[in-house]
């Protein structure tokens, strides 16, 4: 479904990701873990074409997207959704208008049908009856759930999640985790989730890939990652202090 081949990207001459090779299979949940600043979010932005790689190929749904223009990317994006780290809800629109945005832009559905989809998606994420609220009236967890409802409103094949549980309490994190799993089960979407919460990662992942220093250093199932002999992986998943190798410092040199 998604494949990255020798992908590299740099910002202002500084490499952020180097020679990334990664496959995401159809309908699987791939979780990307790694320390802050290691390039996890950049990887998601590459997959959805928000940034272009300096080298390598990115294949999404059988199409190479790294050289595509914005119009061609937009055709592909109609089958993709993304949940942003800070939700990125349109703050001038109500919850319902946010969820309906993609439907109104890209479909000819009647207003009645659109309202039905809004209600169904909001019910799915536990936000039934909240369509008239404005984003500034919502808590962080509610915003994340609306963001998910917006991402899945147009029945995407792929959903990307950028730190979906960041800044949330453990109970809300677990609710979001369950939503990610149930979205995959109910809609059959392929999911790529970026997180540094290991509990979330172990709860939802079919496979886990770890990024460190701009490279993927380990890929495997939850059990394989837990059994990994790589000291950096073990340090990260257990939150040990040593061996300390700050990803941010390494990227900046």
């Amino acid at each position, binding site marked *: 479904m998604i494949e990255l081949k020798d992908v590299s990207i740099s910002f202002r001459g500084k490499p952020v990701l180097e020679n990334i090779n990664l496959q995401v299979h159809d309908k699987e949940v791939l979780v990307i873990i790694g320390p802050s600043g290691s390039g996890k979010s950049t990887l998601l932005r590459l997959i959805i074409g928000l940034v272009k790689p300096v080298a390598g190929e990115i294949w999404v749904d059988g199409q190479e997207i790294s050289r595509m223009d914005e119009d061609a990317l*937009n055709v592909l*994006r109609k089958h993709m959704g993304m949940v942003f780290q800070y939700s*990125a*809800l*349109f*703050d*001038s629109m109500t919850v319902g208008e946010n969820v309906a*945005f993609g439907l109104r*832009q890209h479909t000819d559905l009647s207003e009645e049908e659109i309202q039905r989809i809004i209600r169904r998606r909001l019910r799915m994420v536990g936000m039934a009856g909240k369509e008239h609220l404005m984003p500034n009236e919502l808590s962080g967890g509610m915003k994340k759930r609306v963001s998910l409802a*917006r991402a899945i409103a147009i029945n995407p094949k792929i959903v990307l999640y950028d730190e979906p549980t960041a800044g949330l309490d453990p109970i809300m994190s677990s609710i979001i985790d369950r939503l990610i799993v149930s979205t995959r089960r109910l809609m059959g979407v392929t999911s790529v989730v970026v997180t540094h919460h290991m509990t979330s990662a172990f709860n939802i992942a079919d496979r886990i890939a770890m990024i460190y220093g701009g490279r993927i250093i380990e890929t495997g199932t939850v059990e394989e990652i837990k059994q990994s002999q790589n000291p950096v992986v073990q340090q990260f998943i257990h939150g040990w202090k040593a061996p300390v190798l700050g990803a941010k410092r390494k990227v900046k040199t």
Partner: protein
Amino acid sequence: MAALIAVLEGIGRYVIDSLENIGRIMILTGQTLFHLRSASPRHTLRQMAHLGVDSLPIVLLTILFTGMVMTVQTAHEFIKYGAQSSVGGVVAIAMGRELAPVLTGVVCAGRVGAAITAEIGSMKVTEQIDALRVMATNPVAYLVVPRLLACVFMLPLLVVFANVIGTIGGYLVAISYAGLSSYTYLHSIKVFAVVNDLTGGLVKAMVFGGIIAIIGCYKGLTTTEGAEGVGRATTGSVVTSIILIFIANYFLSLALYR
């Protein structure tokens, strides 16, 4: 020697940055014109109300007092030389050709340009622009096109109102302060002013509207670094728009009134 090199490097960097910005503004203008055909009437009307209609009170207030002070100054001098029969015409011509379009442009650069940049800049730093792109929506078509159309069509309308209110302000002062008769003032307008004085001002207003919208959107779309960046972009938008309005006004005056 090292200091000289540093100065030259600084100048070079400034020139390159400026040229780069000009190039990007040109590209944004081209993209906006390309997407004009996909303009949403609903969004455009909403922007017209927000950017145009809501600016009417401040524009009218500014131009009312400008017309009044213009008459105070002109009438005082003209009466001294026995040219009171020219006061109305001079005020009307100055209002139609220069004062109404330029002051409306400046007021709108401050009110409308700042609002555009602050809104789009906030969207940029909170990833809402990325969210638009992810949802297969072109930010230029969705955000810039309606604002450009709203500014280009609403500024001339504001200028029409400005001309009326400015002339009324001048009339009231001419009658009450300078002691001119109503007939002298109005007849002077009829004798001196021609339709081109008004239409030229409307053409200017359209150009100023375009400048305000494009610069406002450009500064918003290139905002970085959070709330501080939004503030910086907003200030930059107002300053750049006002400077460009004055520069464009000079060349438009040469072209329209030679």
